[in-house]
Structure formats: C-alpha cells, structure tokens
C-alpha cells in the first residue's frame, strides 16, 4: 500500500471494473441478492448488503470500514441515507463483520469515502427506486410522479404519503433494478452538512466499545513476552515464578509463525520477506494486571539473532553513503545528469528523517476464542481481511471457520493494518482452550511496532541562466516497506512520483528519482501518509532552498513550477491526472488567507508547502516564532483544501486539525532509535507527543467542489513539517534539514 495509489486503490478499482464487465452483482458494490419472495417477503427490506429497512421504520445501514476517528460510521452512512432519502434520526449504524459481500474492507490509504462513493450511492439509490416502485404500484400511479423525503414516498397530485417502513414488505418482493442513477448534487440535504458523529454520545459517557472493552464469557487475559531484539527468537523460559503470581492460570509458548502478505498480494517462494510473528511467551491470568505481573516474574532467555548489530548511527551512516552513488531508477525525464553538469548554478542539500512509531492511544489488543475447529475474534483492526488470511494460515482452519468482529479503534494511523496482535490472541486462545484477550502495554507497543521507515534524501537542482529549474535530481535511501510483506527491494515511492514526491516532478524538463535500500530487520509499516511523509519534507524544503538561492518568493516559485507546459504524471498511473489548476488554487488561497508577504516581527516567519495526493489538493502556511534559546512555537496554520465533493465539512476540518497535530508531533519530537537491535523508546516520557499547550491555531478553508471526493485522513500530515522548516528559515535564516528538528541549532549565542 504505497501512498496515494496504494494497492488498496488498485484492488478496488480492479474489482469495480470486473463488476462492470460482468454487469451484475459484485463484491465491491456489495449487492446481495436474496432469494426473492421467500425469506424476505413480509419481513424486512434488505435489497443489498448495506441497507435494511424494518417495518417499524428503523433503517439499518452497515458500515464495513473501520472507525478509528476519521468518521466513516457517520460519513458513509450519510452517503447511503442521502441517496435513500432516509430520515437520519431513524438510521441505525451497524459495524460490518468481515464478510466478502462488502468487498475489500481494508481501511487505509484515505480511501474509505473515495472507494465507497460510487457503490454506496448506487446501493442507496437502488433501494430508494424499489421503495418508489412499491408505492407507485400500490397507488396505481406512475413511479415518475412519486418523490421521496424523510423515509417516505409522496405523491403530490393525490397528496398521498406512505412510509418506508410501511413499504418494506412490498418492496422486499420486488426484483432489484439495475443502473439506477444517483441523485444530482443539487438535491443533497444530508451530504455536505455537518451531521454530528454517531458515536459521540456514547464516547462522552464511556459507552463506546473499543477492542480493549471486549468481554466474552470465560475470557482470560494475556500479556506476552516478545523477543526484545528484532528478529530474535525464544531460547527457553522458566514459568515457576510467573505461575506463583496470584491469578496466573497458564504460561504458554507462542510459536513463531510466518504470516501472509497483508493485502492478499502474491508472494514468490524464497521471497526474503520479513513478515513473521516472532513468537514469545504468554502469561495467561484471570485479569489484565495479574497477566502483566506474571510476565514481570517470568524468567526467559532469548536468542538475539542477526539484528543485534543494528543501531541508528550505523543506519544513518549507511544511508548517507548510499545516496552518494546511484540507486534504482524510479523515474527519469530528459537528461538530468548532463543538464545538471552544465547548469549555470547548482543547489544541493541532504535531508534526514527517522523511524517513527504509531502510538495509537488504545494500545494493541485482541480477543479471540478458538475452540471446536472455529475461531471467533473481536479485533480493533483496519485490515480484517488481512487478519482473516493470517488466521487461516496460522491456525490451519478454513476461512469459513473464522468470524471477525471489528470493534471501534482507539486510533489506527496505519498500525492496525498489521494484524500481529490478532494472530497472537488466536494462538494463545487455542493453546489454553479458552477465550483470551491479549493486552499490549505502551512499552510493548513502542518496542514492537511496524515503524515508519527512516530515510535520507540527496537533492540536487541545476538552474539555467534565467534561474529556471532545468534539472532536478532526488536520490532516496530508505528501507522498503512493501518488501517486508512481499519480499525484495520494493520502492515505496515508485509509480507515485508526483503524488509521492510532490512538485516539481513532471513539471521540470529534466528529472531523476532513484532509491537505494537500507537493509534492516526493523519491522516497517504504513504510517499515516506513508512515503509522502518523508519525501514531501525533503522536496518541499528543497523548493524553498532553490527559492532562496534564486532570491524568489517561495509561493511564487511554486506558482512557476505549476505553470509548466509539461503534462504531469497521473497519480500512480490509474488515478485521475493531476489538475494543476486546482493545485494552484489551493496554493493561492492559503497564501491569501495567511497574509503571505505581509511583514512579521523579528523572530517570526511563515512557510508554505503544497501537495496533491490521495485525490486531494492541499496547501498549508505555517507561522512560527523562534525564541532566542532556539525553541520553536507554531502559532498558526492556514490550510486550503480541495478534496472534491465534501460529505461532512466538519469532519474534513477535524481531519485537518488532527493531521497537523500528527505531522507536527513527528516534526518536533518523533524519533525511534535503536541500539543493539532494540528500540530505545518505551513510553510517552521518551517518545514525546504534542500536547494541548502546544496546539497551533488551525484555520481551514475548503474549496467548494462537486468533483469526486478525495481523501482527507492523510493529506494534512505531510506538509506541516516542511511548512514549519520553511517558516523557521524565514524567521532565522537557518535551514533545519533533519527531523525531528534539532532546534538547539537555532539558539543564539
């Protein structure tokens, strides 16, 4: 799943086309065609997998994406309710279990709305058409004379009205029509409004149930000791002292198991992939605390494995060396090396970013019950399909024997695309013959994450005599993420050049993007905004370095780069081509709203960054104050976003605020370091989070649009770090090229 295109996008697209070709039901569209007339007639109206209308008027809408704060349980239901013309107050949201009828249920890649927009509109419109048909035939009037509103069909001429609940039985006996067109946006009254989150009333009274709140009869609690060195294995353990802790029931080995790829990809024999559950020892007790206490008493010895020699300074040195040579060529336009050699002026800079952890507020956990050849799981996961495949593999059970209930997620950010903790829970449940909840501590979480990769970037620009960018060369050194799961040196940036690296790729006449690979046993995973989070920092910082070298205004230089006559690449090759007018518009809007160009007092500065990715155009201007001691305070961030059709504007704003906090936390503090192949950070005392006292004022400006919806979860993340770096430069004249910002370099002597 790399950045904007993502394997997710490709999978859904392929399925969609397949469905179109077949001209009938498809997994993605999710039309479930019940045997007509028998099981549904006279009861509930359930024309497809997503909608059920009960005779009492309750409308059950199934949301088959994971809720981790980004809001699909509200926004996807809004799309369905809009097309159905449902009474929003009667809508009941239900979380879909893992079920092939819903298609790909992975939640990631800022895709929930993008990939659901067409099928959900069609599901809603189809159900509405059937209800209209039922009413029209009851009244013996043409269906075209009927309208719908608030869960009722109306016939204006005869002033008649019948509710959806009253029509449910009759509609259930009708054939499901095909190719019903969705509504015109002019008729929207739910989509585009600030509907409140459906879960908020439960959250504020403590009744929202996350994975950690799962309780099933006879459930035991487990804490797992895992190999501290990545790639290490269990040598031996002595359970005597652990068994003596009150409440401890059993101490069992968790086998190391090979896990399949996360998203159903093909994997070759001897691929060299690193996707393993490395095993360990589980202490199983009557309560969580007893399990944790039992684990503390456990005596265990580990084999360190090959990772014991790995440390951060070595990794940094290796990457710095790698970018001096040539890497795997990912994209080349023109003759960049020659043009650079003959350039009137050259600019060169290198940037560094560290490994990062996700640290969802709800630490990883999962409850599993494996008994009698069946496995039932309650899992806070973004990837129930991936968990299902991993359970099939680890337990040797058929997919039909596995039930996965998706709970609410206390944050996701990509961590819960990984399903290691779910496999652990199932293996332990099977070993002890009882339902088990595995609970990770924060220390477990920080030390056994799938980290955002570290990276080192070398950028070079060749300018012509008029100070135009004639050549742009970018060499990235980083470990592969996809390769962890499928094996091989798979570039995370490949195919997503413009999106993943941002301007000026595709807009300068001579361009080179290449990647070298750091080989490491450190697990890597997908972290909110994935490869864009690293590449964009380097590129958007370097654009400003070119601006400074040519004495151009940073916004003006970006305008010039956008004003290319070249045709930039489509996003990943299967998305819509980049619309540079939309990009320029958000850039101009952010500049205008931020007061770009207006003087600021000494020690203050503004910085800009702009991005197209995940189908969304976004620009940010950060305003910072740098104190004499070098400390940096981000006071204000102005965001301009064009994400196409907005489903819920308040939730777009929430994603902007949250994404900026996420990106700013990483820019100011985020750094996972290794010594002896072990993560050195353990909890929030040494892995620092942005807190309320450091929250900048975030102002969001949404461009009105009826283009297809773009993503919102990831787009706000990548730009904040370069915008702040550029603002620091504007304030101080000093360029910080390494994240997290080494602000001590800004201190005035």
């Amino acid at each position, binding site marked *: 799943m790399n950045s904007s295109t993502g394997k997710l996008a490709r999978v859904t697209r392929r399925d969609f086309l397949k469905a179109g070709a077949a001209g009938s039901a498809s997994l993605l569209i999710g039309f479930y065609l019940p045997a007509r007339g028998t099981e549904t007639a006279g009861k509930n109206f359930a024309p497809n997998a997503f909608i059920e209308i009960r005779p009492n008027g309750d409308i059950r809408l199934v949301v088959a994406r994971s809720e981790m704060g980004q809001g699909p349980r509200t926004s996807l239901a809004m799309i369905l309710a809009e097309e159905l013309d449902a009474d929003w107050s009667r809508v009941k949201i239900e979380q879909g279990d893992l079920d092939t009828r819903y298609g790909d249920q992975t939640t990631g890649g800022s895709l929930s709305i993008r990939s659901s927009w067409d099928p959900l509109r069609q599901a809603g419109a189809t159900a509405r058409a059937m209800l209209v048909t039922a009413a029209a035939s009851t009244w013996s009037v043409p269906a075209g004379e009927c309208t719908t509103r608030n869960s009722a069909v109306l016939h204006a001429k005869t002033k008649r009205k019948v509710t959806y609940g009253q029509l449910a039985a009759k509609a259930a006996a009708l054939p499901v029509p095909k190719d019903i067109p969705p509504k015109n946006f002019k008729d929207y009254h739910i989509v585009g409004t600030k509907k409140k989150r459906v879960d908020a009333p439960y959250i*504020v009274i403590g009744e929202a149930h996350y994975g950690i709140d799962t309780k099933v009869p006879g459930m035991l609690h487990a804490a797992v000791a895992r190999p501290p060195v990545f790639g290490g294995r269990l040598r031996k353990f002595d359970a005597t002292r652990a068994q003596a802790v009150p409440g401890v029931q059993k101490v069992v080995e968790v086998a190391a198991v090979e896990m399949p790829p996360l998203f159903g990809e093909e994997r070759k024999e001897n691929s060299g992939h690193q996707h393993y559950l490395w095993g360990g020892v589980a202490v199983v007790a009557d309560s*969580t605390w007893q399990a944790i206490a039992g684990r503390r008493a456990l005596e265990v010895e580990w084999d360190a494995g090959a990772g014991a020699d790995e440390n951060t300074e070595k990794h940094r040195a290796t990457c710095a060396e790698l970018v001096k040579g040539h890497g795997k060529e990912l994209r080349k336009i023109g003759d960049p090396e020659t043009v650079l050699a003959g350039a009137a002026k050259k600019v060169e800079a290198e940037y560094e970013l560290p490994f990062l952890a996700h640290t*969802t507020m709800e630490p990883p956990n999962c409850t599993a019950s494996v008994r009698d050849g069946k496995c039932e799981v309650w899992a806070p996961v973004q990837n129930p399909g991936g968990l299902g495949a991993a359970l099939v593999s680890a337990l040797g059970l058929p997919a039909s024997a596995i039930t996965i209930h998706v709970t609410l997620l206390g944050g996701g950010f990509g961590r819960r695309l990984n399903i290691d903790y779910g496999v652990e829970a199932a293996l332990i449940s099977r070993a002890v013959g009882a339902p088990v909840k595995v609970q990770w501590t924060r220390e477990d979480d920080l030390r056994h994450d799938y980290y955002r990769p570290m990276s080192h970037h070398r950028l070079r620009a060749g300018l012509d005599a008029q100070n135009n960018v004639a050549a742009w060369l970018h060499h990235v050194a980083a470990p592969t993420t996809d390769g962890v799961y499928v094996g091989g040196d798979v570039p995370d940036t490949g195919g997503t050049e413009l999106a993943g690296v941002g301007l000026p790729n595709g807009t300068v006449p001579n361009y080179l993007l290449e990647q070298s690979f750091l080989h490491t046993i450190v697990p890597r995973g997908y972290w909110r905004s994935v490869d864009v989070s690293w590449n964009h920092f380097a590129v958007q910082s370097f654009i400003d370095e070119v601006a400074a070298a040519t004495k151009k205004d940073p916004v003006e230089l970006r305008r010039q780069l956008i004003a290319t006559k070249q045709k930039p690449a489509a996003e990943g090759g299967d998305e819509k081509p980049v619309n540079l007018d939309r990009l320029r518009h958000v850039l101009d809007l952010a500049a205008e709203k931020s007061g770009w160009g207006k003087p600021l007092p000494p020690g203050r500065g503004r910085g800009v960054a702009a991005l197209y990715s995940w189908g969304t155009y976004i620009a940010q201007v950060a305003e910072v104050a740098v104190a004499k001691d070098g400390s940096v305070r981000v006071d204000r961030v102005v965001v301009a976003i064009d994400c196409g059709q907005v489903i819920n504007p308040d939730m777009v704003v929430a994603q902007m605020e949250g994404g900026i906090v996420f990106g700013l936390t990483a820019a100011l503090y985020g750094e996972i370091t290794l010594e002896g192949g072990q993560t050195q950070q353990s909890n929030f005392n040494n892995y620092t989070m942005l807190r309320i006292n450091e929250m900048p004022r975030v102002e969001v400006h949404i461009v009105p649009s009826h283009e297809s919806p773009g993503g919102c979860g990831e787009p706000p993340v990548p730009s904040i770090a370069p915008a702040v770096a550029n603002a620091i430069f504007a304030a101080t004249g000093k360029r910080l090229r390494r994240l997290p910002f080494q602000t001590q370099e800004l201190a005035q002597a």
Partner: protein
Amino acid sequence: MDAISITVNGKVHAVEVSPDTPLLWVLRDTLGLTGTKFGCGMALCGACTVHVDGEATRSCTTRISAVAGRNITTIEGLSPDGQNPVQLAWIEEQVPQCGYCQVGMIMTTAALLAKNSAPTDAEIDDALSGHICRCGTYQRIRAAVHQAASKHTPAAAAPKKAAGGAR
C-alpha cells in the same frame, strides 16, 4: 487475600485483589467499568483519569490500597444521564475523533470546572497538558471547555450528587 473496600460512583464494593493492583484494572476488570481507559500505565497520558474525592487522579498508577474507603467517581458516575455540561459541550463542539482519550479529558475538565468556573486558555492548557490526544482534538477541547464553563453550575459538577441514584 483480604477484601479492600472502595466506593465507586456512590456504591460500596469489596474487591479481592492484590493491594498493589492499580485502581484502573480494578475498575475495568473487576467492576466492569470500562469507560476508564488504559493508555500508558505511567500517568503520562491521562486516559485513565477518574476523580478521587473530587480530585482528578490517574488510576493507572494509583494502587487500590491507597484508595480504600475513598470516594471514586468514573465517567459512568459523572452524571446519571450523560447531561453533564462537559459531556454536552463535547458533543456540541464535536470534539471526539476516535474518542479513546476523551473520557479522561472530560473527567479532568469536570474537576477543573468544579474549582474554577471560568478558566482562561492558559488555565485550560495547564489542567489538560498532562493528557494526550493522538487524533489532535486539542483546538476543540479548548472550545468545549469554554462552552461547558459558560453553562456550568456548581451543582452540575458535583459528582457525588450525580451518582446518588446508583447507591
């Protein structure tokens, strides 16, 4: 092991757990009050915040033996019907994203408002900077605290009164 007596949301419980068990896990595992969340286990994130005799307290580092005989209020006892001004303001301002940390934020805010009915931004930051929200809802939290303060009456914040019905 001897039973330890604690009063939670106005109800007396005798719990048989090891005296070093954190209050958090007694609430969650023994009493089934799962509204209080586990975030860090080191009093660094605030997700586990409850009131002990009206004071905002981190339950993850509070041993059960230290709260014997004390009055503990959890989110389940903050109001009988979810109508505490803080809870209402949290919905009105649409604060929660994933919502996991918000119970702790709400409990600290309720304790703050009981003492200071009109906190400034700086006072809000001071009270809540011990909390972490990974979804980044801080801007809305500030707005919600101000809104709750504007509707706040001392009676509404008194947790014991709210829990009276459960006795």
